[in-house]
């Protein structure tokens, strides 16, 4: 009787010693993204068609801002790792290094732009945001 899981027994096997970790990362981030995808679609889908003040107010809410930030950060790291597998399969030699560099730059640029946009929308909107009226407080004795 031993206490090793099948994943632990597979870790480090193979010529590069990293494939179990790579596969495990894509599975774990994939599960996270499976949860985030419907939430992201609802967060963004509900905002398309609004005017600028409406969009700023929409992404000023915690749900839309947090879901959008999480989806893009986790999604782009998942995308970088997945694209690296495609590069390993289809690109050889010198172009492979350039493709890997461009993939990293592009993926993190999308993350940076999204976080910058969310920060601008949340903290310093230069547009008059119409805050929806709070629900009337009913005091029940």
């Amino acid at each position, binding site marked *: 009787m031993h206490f090793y899981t099948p994943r632990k027994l597979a870790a480090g096997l193979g010529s590069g010693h990293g494939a179990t970790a790579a596969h495990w990362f894509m599975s774990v981030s994939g599960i996270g993204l499976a949860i985030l995808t419907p939430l992201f679609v*609802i967060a963004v889908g509900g905002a398309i068609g609004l005017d600028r003040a409406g969009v700023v107010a929409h992404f000023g809410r915690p749900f839309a801002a947090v879901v959008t930030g999480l989806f893009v950060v986790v999604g782009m790291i998942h995308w970088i790792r997945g694209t690296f597998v495609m590069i390993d399969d289809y690109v050889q030699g010198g172009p492979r290094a350039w493709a890997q560099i461009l993939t990293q730059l592009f993926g993190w640029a999308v993350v940076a732009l999204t976080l910058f946009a969310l920060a601008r929308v949340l903290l310093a909107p230069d547009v008059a945001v119409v805050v929806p009226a709070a629900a009337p407080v009913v005091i029940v004795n």
Partner: protein
Amino acid sequence: MADVPRGNRPLSPHLQVYRLPLTAITSIMTRGTGQGILPGLLLVVWWLVAAGTSDAAFATADWFLRSWLGWLILLGSTWSLWFHFLAGLRHLWYDSGRGLEIDQGRTLSIVIIVGSVVLALLTVILMLV
């Protein structure tokens, strides 16, 4: 060489002469749709950056996002997103050691294709209302 009688024995299933089963096609499409999410996501990020920048920037981004080309990109990327979502769930299911029989792979492929189209249409309706 050309005159060697080959008889009726099976030949190696080389990729260029081998008709890929539906399960293989949807598996390869997982990669393609993973990249297909990007154009729509970039469009949304541009639109979000513009919303945080200025009225003029937002007007430009919003005009493009809701032009016919913008909707086409959004529809394509939305379908890609749902296809990749369902195909990714299938890979997780495979990893658990299930769904590996030939007929199961075919059934799940049809579920992925039909499901991704239905979910994409529902998403676009959500965007339009």
